[in-house]
């Protein structure tokens, strides 16, 4: 079992990772994962795990790497190592179409985000005393509550939200609010501290970027480069 590489993803972050109706994980992250495995010639397994259990699970060796659109943050760096980024994103607010928007107006509003994400952390750091914050186990429940009207505004990563606006049929009611920020948000694969796997993954990452595999995957999900 020693050479088997277990890669964990969340499965509720379309289009980067989600579970199809056959019960299999799919999405950008998962495609990248398999491409990396192919390059490393490793025997891989992709498992799913709820978001807030990912880093704890990695720490107790339930799996060897997290490829779940996880941003590199200082706090995470204290407990795990990250590979080089495999794409980058930014945070962006999402709200009802047509309403005027100004960061200052968020005072007193109900803002939702997924627990243990960059967005949640940003809200806790900047809005804890200004607005009512709600944190969810997964992003899908955030959307459900936005549509239900329990949330005024959602803060999340721009790219998946872009996909949600396009595919969920809610694009006519909701829209991005303001510009994306924290654009230097680098998304990478997390591994245990000091694990050699990091170097192997970095090497494989370079290879798929170089030989066009990465670009093919990118094109499958987005009409623009997200690297």
């Amino acid at each position, binding site marked *: 079992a020693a050479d088997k590489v277990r890669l964990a993803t969340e499965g509720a972050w379309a289009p980067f990772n989600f579970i199809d109706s056959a019960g299999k994980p799919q999405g950008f992250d998962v495609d990248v994962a398999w491409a990396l495995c192919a390059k490393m010639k490793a025997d891989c397994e992709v498992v799913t795990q709820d978001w807030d259990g990912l880093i704890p699970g990695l720490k107790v060796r339930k799996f060897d790497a997290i490829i779940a659109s996880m941003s590199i943050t200082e706090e995470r760096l204290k407990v795990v190592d990250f590979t080089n980024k495999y794409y980058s994103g930014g945070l962006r607010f999402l709200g009802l179409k047509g309403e005027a928007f100004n960061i200052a107006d968020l005072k007193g509003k109900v803002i939702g985000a997924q627990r243990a994400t960059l967005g949640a952390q940003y809200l806790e750091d900047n809005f804890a005393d200004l607005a009512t914050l709600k*944190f969810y186990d997964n992003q899908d429940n955030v959307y459900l509550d936005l549509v239900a009207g329990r949330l005024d505004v959602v803060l999340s990563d721009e790219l998946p939200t872009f996909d949600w606006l396009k595919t969920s049929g809610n694009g006519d009611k909701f829209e991005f609010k303001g510009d994306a920020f924290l654009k230097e948000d680098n998304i990478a694969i997390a591994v245990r501290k000091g694990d050699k796997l990091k170097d192997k993954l970095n090497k494989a990452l370079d290879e798929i970027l170089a030989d066009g595999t990465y670009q093919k995957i990118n094109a499958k999900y987005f009409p623009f480069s997200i690297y």
Partner: protein
Amino acid sequence: MDFSVIVEYFPRLMQGTWVSLQLIFLSVVLGGIFALPIALARISKNPLISGLPFAYIFFFRGTPLLVQIFLVYYGASQFEVVRESFLWPILREPFWCAIIAFTLNTSAYTAEIFRGAIQAIPVGEVEACKVVGMTKVQMYRRILLPRAFGIVLPAYGNEIILMLKGSALASTITILDLTGMARTIIARTYTPIEIFLAAGAIYLVISMVVIAIFKQVEKRQNRYLGPNPVKLPDDV
């Protein structure tokens, strides 16, 4: 293991504990209030009266509380009619959704406990009421309910503990109860074992307090019972 995180986050765990206590208290009280009429209707020999409570009890005892919470919180809000109704101000609040789910759930269990207690009263004591010419209402008010209350206590204490433990599920609908708070803290500290153990210890303390209170109440309430108190039938 790093126990300093427990110290550091203890005040926030206490905030969560307070929310848990509110959830438990409200749902237990409301559940108890609804349980009695449900139990009385369930006892009725008329299937038109006992049918609905039977189905109600069966559904809420036969499905996981987690499903019930999701049905109330995410399921109900899916519908435009619900969102436009006068109930929405309540249903949009996760706290009240949890209260609703918990109350429905615990009232079903408590109703069964009441029913068991009333039916566990020896038939002779009921006949003794009849032969002094009591009406049904007198019989329930004077003998059956006071008697059932004494019989019900141990099982009801258990039900409160079960509710206490069930309340941890509130964390799945964004409520920052003790478990929710613990999970939020872990999202920052990545120390699941320490924080979950601390939360577990707090739950344990609360349930011990509940048990101790019930022991006292039981002793007072059942002081009249000699060596052979009436036991609830097994299937309650």
